[in-house]
């Protein structure tokens, strides 16, 4: 494969979403100027002005503005049926919303093309090693692409619902698209770069870009979530940068030239020469710092707030892939640390963090009263399982962990998008006030239920296979890890019970059928189908998965 | 050497005893002139002392030995300090005993004696002043220890004459971060220890704010004269110590009488300049609220601690 094509394939996953974001920004600016010129046309270029007016005038949700009750997600009950009617119809008339599918498609195509090359030829690099793709990169790119496809494809329905409820003016819809695609670009950059400094810059960029997505409703709760999110993540990520600096210092002292001292393959090759004490300090900081972004203890407090306040597709992206992109960064450092310090250090560190996170998530799931927060804590639970897999570090555990990342991404994205639908349907995110979703809206309810079933780890979904793999690897790895695994399984069981009873409460019970149209829900069906397919047979992805696990294997 | 050494001590003590009230007078005069008043003159403290000494000794009913002995103890500790602290010469017969820790202990002993006396009177003001003084002292003593300790690290000894002689030899020690931080910390500590603004106002009798004055409110006649004299001695010695530590130029390190006389002249000059600068600064300062005082002192303690760490870690090879 020639160099130019490699460079192109490595550049495009990050560049294409950026270009899409820029396109949205330009169009947004133009429409904004136009709507300013004609103040009465406040984004109501909608084909059915009467219907729009009717929904906009709904009490408690004045157009554009957001009242306090609105912030608690309790306000727009009565308008719900109208939204449901409106959502599918508005779909075809908003081509701009659908243009957003371009970036996930490009990411998936590039991922697929890279996959065939990487499986045959090994790692590819471009721009003198700045961008690099190995099997792990490609696997994560495919996961990002797939989850982004679900999120972007369910965005039009979500936005239509929000517009109908008058919660967002047109300008902020443009801003939503710009930020989502910039977010995708930052995540892809974090994946394809081999420079650990650039990796940090990209992950910090995801925080900055998503801040306004979390706080986009301007209600008290959203602003609070956004503030916590930015402050905790930025401070946590700053720790990771300090760790990066220390590793850089150790590499420079080990005689690596300045230009290569943050290059991942170089660091891996020279890892045995890094000073152990400095590396230990650096790795601890990196794990804590990127752990903040991956939702691991002790800097996890932002996660449930941000996930519950962000719009559903953004929650899906954050929970489905942002956490695992940050965790992929930890995995990269783990390989270096294992080569420099031996496997025990990161094993103890990651096992401890994983068990603490798991205990916290299970405990808070038991007492949970908000279904979006429930899903957020379930994400923490799954990330701690992945961390446990990384701590075990055998080929089986690593492959299972990577499969778990993919399965969790797909299932959680589906669950969050479905929960967004339920929120628009019922106007509240309190579990206690939602009954009979299945009777009221069978498709939505069934999809939400199936997604939760997938998250619980039932076959045929891939989380069953991956959890089984992690457990087997854990018990095979020795007495200490065996006990840790047993404790983890007990905690997973508690989380399982909590999640199952809460979801059953929400779905079952009597309800008025609303006559929903299932056509807007195809992305969710696709996500669940993909998750199930991965669980039944990895198919052509098997080689990629085993090679990705081999990238992370201990020397 | 011995004769000159004893002469240096005698000169130093004589200068401190004669000069301490004059220093206070000088500071009051400076302040008065800056505020546009004529002032009472530099020798007014001596006149006050003379007047007080002529009065009949009186002590309040119900006070015990703590009240009676405190003024004497205060003056005695201050005089011992005046002997020990190397102001004129570093080469004196007592230099082996002029240890940093002894100096701080003597300072604390004087403070403690006054605080006990304040408690002994059994009045509200006495107790209040004593409690405030102890609060301040608890933060000031460690600060002085730390600051001088920071300076002692490059010298390798806690002996004050050795530190001063070392600093006179190598002035670069003082411009290092450790030296600068220690100067700042010690300056704040000296202000607090000698009861000056912004920690305590020496010329107030307002019950809400006074610290030192509240403790000695019940004294009259010769006892009051002693207390005032003790306080003046402490101020003079502390300012002299500050001058010796941070501007040690000219201090006699050898046994020649000329050097000692020159050093005496210089130290009188330095202390006078320091005192005038302090008085001038006090014109522009307001007293801190009592609850803010611990912040200031904790800050100076932190500076002293930073000075210690800096001289340990930055300087050491």
């Amino acid at each position, binding site marked *: 494969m020639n160099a130019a094509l490699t460079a192109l394939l490595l550049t495009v996953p990050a560049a294409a979403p950026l270009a899409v974001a820029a396109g949205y920004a330009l169009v947004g600016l133009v429409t904004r100027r136009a709507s300013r010129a004609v103040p009465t046309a406040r984004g109501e270029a909608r084909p059915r002005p009467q219907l729009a007016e009717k929904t906009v005038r709904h009490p408690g949700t004045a157009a554009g503005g957001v009242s306090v009750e609105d912030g608690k997600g309790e306000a727009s009950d009565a308008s719900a049926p109208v939204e449901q009617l409106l959502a599918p119809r508005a779909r075809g008339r908003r081509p701009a919303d659908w243009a957003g599918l371009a970036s996930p498609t490009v990411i998936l195509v590039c991922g697929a093309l890279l996959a065939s090359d990487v499986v045959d030829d090994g790692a590819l690099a471009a721009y003198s090693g700045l961008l690099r793709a190995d099997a792990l990169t490609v696997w994560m790119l495919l996961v990002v692409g797939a989850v982004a496809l679900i999120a972007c494809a369910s965005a039009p329905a979500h936005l239509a619902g929000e517009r109908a409820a008058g919660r967002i003016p047109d300008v902020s819809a443009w801003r939503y698209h710009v930020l989502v695609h910039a977010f995708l670009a930052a995540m892809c950059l974090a994946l394809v770069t081999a*420079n650990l400094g650039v990796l940090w810059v990209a992950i910090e960029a995801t925080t900055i870009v998503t801040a306004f997505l979390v*706080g986009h409703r301007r209600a*008290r709760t959203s602003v609070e979530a956004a503030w916590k999110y930015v*402050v905790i993540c930025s401070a946590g990520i700053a720790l990771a*940068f300090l760790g990066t600096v220390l590793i*850089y210092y150790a590499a420079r002292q080990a005689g690596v030239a300045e230009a290569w*001292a943050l290059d991942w393959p170089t660091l891996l090759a020279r890892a045995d020469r890094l000073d152990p004490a400095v590396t230990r300090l650096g790795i601890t900081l990196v794990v804590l710092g990127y752990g903040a972004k991956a939702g691991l203890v002790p800097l996890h407090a932002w996660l449930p707030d941000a996930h519950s306040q962000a719009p559903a597709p953004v929650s899906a992206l954050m929970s489905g892939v942002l956490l695992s992109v940050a965790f992929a960064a930890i995995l990269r450092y783990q390989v270096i640390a294992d080569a420099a310090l031996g496997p025990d250090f990161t094993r103890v560190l990651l096992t401890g963090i994983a068990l603490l996170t798991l205990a916290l998530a299970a405990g808070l799931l038991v007492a949970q009263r908000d279904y979006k927060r429930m899903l957020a804590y379930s994400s923490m639970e799954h990330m701690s399982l992945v961390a446990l897999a990384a701590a075990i570090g055998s080929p089986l555990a690593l492959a299972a962990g990577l499969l778990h990342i993919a399965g969790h991404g797909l299932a959680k994205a589906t669950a969050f998008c479905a929960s967004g639908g339920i929120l628009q349907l019922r106007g509240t995110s309190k579990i206690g006030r939602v009954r009979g979703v299945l009777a009221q809206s069978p498709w939505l309810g069934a999809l939400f239920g199936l997604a939760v079933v997938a998250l619980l780890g039932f076959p045929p979904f891939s989380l069953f296979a991956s959890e089984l793999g992690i457990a087997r690897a854990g018990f095979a790895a020795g007495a200490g890890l065996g006990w840790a695994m047993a404790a983890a399984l007990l905690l997973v069981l508690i989380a399982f019970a909590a999640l199952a009873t809460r979801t059953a409460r929400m779905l079952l019970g009597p309800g008025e059928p609303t006559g929903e149209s299932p056509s807007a829900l195809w992305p969710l069906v696709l996500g669940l189908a993909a998750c199930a397919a991965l669980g039944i047979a990895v198919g052509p992805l098997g080689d990629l998965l085993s090679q990705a696990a081999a990238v992370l294997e201990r020397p | 050497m011995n004769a000159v050494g004893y002469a240096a001590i005698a000169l130093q003590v004589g200068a401190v005893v004669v000069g301490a009230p004059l220093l206070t007078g000088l500071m009051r005069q400076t302040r008065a002139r800056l505020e546009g008043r004529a002032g009472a003159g530099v020798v007014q403290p001596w006149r006050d002392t003379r007047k007080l000494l002529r009065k009949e000794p009186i002590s309040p009913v119900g006070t015990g030995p703590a009240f009676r002995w405190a003024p004497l103890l205060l003056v005695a500790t201050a005089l011992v300090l005046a002997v020990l602290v190397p102001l004129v010469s570093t080469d004196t017969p007592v230099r082996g005993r002029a240890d940093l820790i002894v100096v701080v202990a003597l300072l604390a002993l004087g403070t403690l004696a006054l605080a006990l006396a304040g408690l002994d009177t059994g009045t509200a003001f006495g107790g209040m002043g004593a409690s405030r003084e102890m609060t301040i002292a608890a933060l000031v003593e460690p600060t002085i220890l730390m600051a001088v300790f920071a300076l002692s690290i490059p010298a390798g000894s806690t002996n004050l004459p050795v530190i001063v002689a070392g600093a006179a030899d190598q002035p670069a020690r003082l411009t290092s971060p450790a030296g*600068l931080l220690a100067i700042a910390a010690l300056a704040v500590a000296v202000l607090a220890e000698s009861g000056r603004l912004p920690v305590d106002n020496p010329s107030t009798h307002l019950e809400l704010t006074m610290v030192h004055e509240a403790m000695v409110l019940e004294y009259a006649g010769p006892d009051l004269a002693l207390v005032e004299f003790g306080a003046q001695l402490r101020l003079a010695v502390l300012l002299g110590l500050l001058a010796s530590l941070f501007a040690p130029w000219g201090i006699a390190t050898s046994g020649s009488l000329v050097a000692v006389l020159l050093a005496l002249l210089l130290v009188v000059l330095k202390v006078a300049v320091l005192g005038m600068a302090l008085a001038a600064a006090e014109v522009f300062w307001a007293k801190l609220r009592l609850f803010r005082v611990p912040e200031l002192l904790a800050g100076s303690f932190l500076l002293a601690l930073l000075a210690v760490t800096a001289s340990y870690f930055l300087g050491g090879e």
Partner: protein
Amino acid sequence: MSEGLFTQLLDLACGAFLLAAVVVLWRRELVAIVRLFALQGLALAAIALLLGLHEDRWDLIVVAAGIGALRAGLLPYLIRRALTALVADQEQGETRPYVRSEEVRETQPLVNVAASLLTAAALTLLAYAVARPLVELDPTPATRALPVGLAVVLIGFFVLVTRRRALAQVVGFLLLDNGITATAFLAASGVPLIVELGVSFDVLLAVLVLQLLTVRVREAFGTTYIDDLRELHD
């Protein structure tokens, strides 16, 4: 530049850098805190400049100029602008005159000032203890000052955790970042240029985002006390 003079000047710059962080804990007025932060930026630029002169590296001198412009000029300017916006907003909207002083001061930090200062002392000692392996790896004048950077990181974290005004927390975050940058300079004469650029850009954007969020917090809650943000909990 002679070795001795370089060490002396570097130590002075590091001392000023640490001192600025400590005094931030001391002061309550946000204006004074921002001014101290600007001073710290200057000290950081001085560290980079000294290293650049010492190693004869022109790129470091350029980086030093950039850091000075960003951290002593642009970022303090942004925070000060947010501050004046908050105050002006308040004066317009409300008639109570004493409220103005409330919004520009950190009146009640979670830990009082005296205790904060003592904690800062403990944090400094901790930084020295933690940094011992770092210094031992390559003891030069620059790496020997490494604990200063780590101490500022810890103090920044402390400010972030204990201060309750939104803008004071922003300054805490920036102190943290200054500390990390200083660590990078003292340990390895700075990270590669592309990373340095990216980091500076990210920090600038983060401050802009936090500034906007401060305005929104004020709109939504009527105050910038972060303690009032307690609607989301389990």
